[in-house]
């Protein structure tokens, strides 16, 4: 097991290096720079700024020094947020995105898996028929449509919940963004659980257990263990996507999370901030995929043999 984890971590390094390299050169080769203001700076001032931030050196040297500081755990100073390091900004933004993501993930998993189980256990029942169209519907509801609709309904008409803002993560400010984030995933998870459990319930071991007269609850428990494999495998990348912040949800609800920092960084050509957020997202994607694989190995002993 330890060897499996170590090997996966070793495989992650080239991926991260690829992310750093691609985003570094993509940004530097693009037109525009971080000091392109509406009123152009005096050439001398621009020259000074470029020297301070090391932008006057050859690109490859800059890349080398960026990698060197990365190795020390230093993400560099932000170009657009004065006197703040990228690490400061991430430390401030990550809790916002992570809180939202974790809550949305919990809500989606609870509802989605629950509905999926109910549908699989009663084929052709009310829940099953509801999911037939309902799952496709929630999958097709874009967050940028759901969010304004929720704002209208609960913020403006009913006046139950605030329209946006963070306010230190007060529960009332969390409800609408969390629901918006979770909604499409409820359908996806329900559909996945239903298909997977339905398949397992048709297998020989389960039918044998039934024929031996085991109580249905116990049969279901056995079946669930195998049926949850694809669901858990799906939860890895999903968790990464939710935890690192949704650009749209954070923009619409005005939340100071990672997604917002990324977009602002990209618009302001804040090289280091963009690099930092992209690296963070990539790192989390890798870590959570690994976590999902480990969970799968725990659920299914056969997978441990390969590892």
């Amino acid at each position, binding site marked *: 097991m330890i060897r499996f984890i170590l090997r996966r971590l070793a495989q992650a390094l080239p991926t991260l290096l690829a992310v750093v390299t691609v985003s570094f050169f993509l940004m530097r080769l*693009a037109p525009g720079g971080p000091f392109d203001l509406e009123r152009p700076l005096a050439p001398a001032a621009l020259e000074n700024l470029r020297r301070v931030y090391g932008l006057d050196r050859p690109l490859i040297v800059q890349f080398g020094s960026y990698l060197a500081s990365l190795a020390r755990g230093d993400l560099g100073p932000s170009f657009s947020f004065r006197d703040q390091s990228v690490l400061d900004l991430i430390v401030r933004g990550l809790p916002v995105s992570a809180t939202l993501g974790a809550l949305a993930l919990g809500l989606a998993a609870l509802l989605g898996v629950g509905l999926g189980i109910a549908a699989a256990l009663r084929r052709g029942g009310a829940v099953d028929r509801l999911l037939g169209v309902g799952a496709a519907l929630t999958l*097709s509801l874009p967050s940028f449509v759901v969010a304004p609709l929720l704002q209208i309904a609960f913020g403006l008409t009913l006046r139950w919940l605030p329209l946006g803002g963070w306010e230190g993560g007060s529960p009332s400010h969390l409800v609408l963004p969390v629901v918006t984030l979770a909604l499409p995933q409820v359908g996806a998870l329900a559909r996945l659980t239903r298909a997977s459990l339905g398949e397992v319930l048709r297998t020989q071991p389960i039918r044998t257990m039934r024929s031996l007269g085991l109580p249905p609850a116990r049969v279901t428990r056995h079946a669930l263990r195998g049926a949850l494999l694809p669901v858990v495998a799906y939860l890895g990348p999903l968790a990464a996507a939710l935890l690192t912040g949704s650009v*749209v949800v954070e923009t619409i609800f005005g939340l100071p999370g990672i997604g917002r920092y990324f*977009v602002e960084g990209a618009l302001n050509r804040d090289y280091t901030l963009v690099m930092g957020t992209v690296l963070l*997202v*990539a790192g989390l994607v890798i870590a959570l995929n690994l976590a999902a694989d480990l969970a799968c190995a725990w659920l299914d002993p056969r997978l441990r043999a390969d590892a």
Partner: protein
Amino acid sequence: MTSPAGRALSRLGRTRTAMAALIVLVLIGLACLIGPGVTGHEPERAYPDLRQLPAGLAAQPDPAHLGPALERLAFRMRVKLEAVAREGDTLRLTLRSDAGVDRRSLAYLPRSGLFGPPDVLEERDAGRSLAIAVPIRQLHFPLGTDVQGRDLLTRCLVAGRVSLAIGLAASLVALLIGVAYGATAGFLGGAVDAVMMRLVDVLYALPFVFFVILLLVFFRPSLLLMLVAIAAVEWLDMARVVRAVTLSLRERDFVRAARALGLGTPRIILRHIVPNTLGPVAVTATLLVPQVILLESFLSFLGLGVQEPQTSWGVLIAEGARSIEAAPHLLAGPAVLLIATLVALNLLGDGLADALDPRVG
């Protein structure tokens, strides 16, 4: 029908939701294709006097909008309205100006889009007063008008052309890349397969949506760039599906026979492997199109996708979301079309998957 494809088609025909979805899709496609020519409005034609009209079937301009529109036109023509009388579909106006009514200014009336060309009935007071008759046009805006007074229905349909075209084109590119890549990796197997699929794994771990956003922010957004960016993200699933199918096909007798006949690898892949992957490819592609359309709308919503004067559902939804308090119908129109398309595509994909699954009835 006895061929597998025929059986699948007839089974698809029996699933009512999938057929309903297909019909909805065809209707939306046809509406977008021919609709803008039928609505009677150019997509860019703005009626400044009829901004943010709510949805409705009544003919415009209605009396509530006629008065203010006439006032505005009179101001532009530098005349005073002395008498206004409506007779059916024509308006009899008496215009007055102490400096004399300039007949050239009558062109303002048809230019507003609300009236036909005016007829001069009588001139009095040495040209200081003019009696004219103007036909009122009967305009219809079933979904209302947008912030600039453009017909929302026409704009939704024109936007649908762009959204659907991008969805299909990007999916096609992703499909070609994915099928070629997956079939090659699966057929060659061994070290080549390991390296190729390892690359796919690495690409999966990249925060691709972030890269697409970066690309579009840094290089000016254009349709072509967006197409390439979306296709570059979305081919991975297809490659995995096709590789998995190819792995099982590779050992089948007809492939061995082809090899025994001395066919080259490219020819076997093209003639014998790819046609046999079509079922799963069709399912994956049907489910890919809504993802692509969603990604396109998402990018356009952020202002990184389709740019003015072109429009797409994402652009219209962004416009609607901005004025949602004053005019919620601006969001409703394009949102309903987008969601209906996505739901129909997803249901069709589900239906196809069921129809092609040999285990189910």
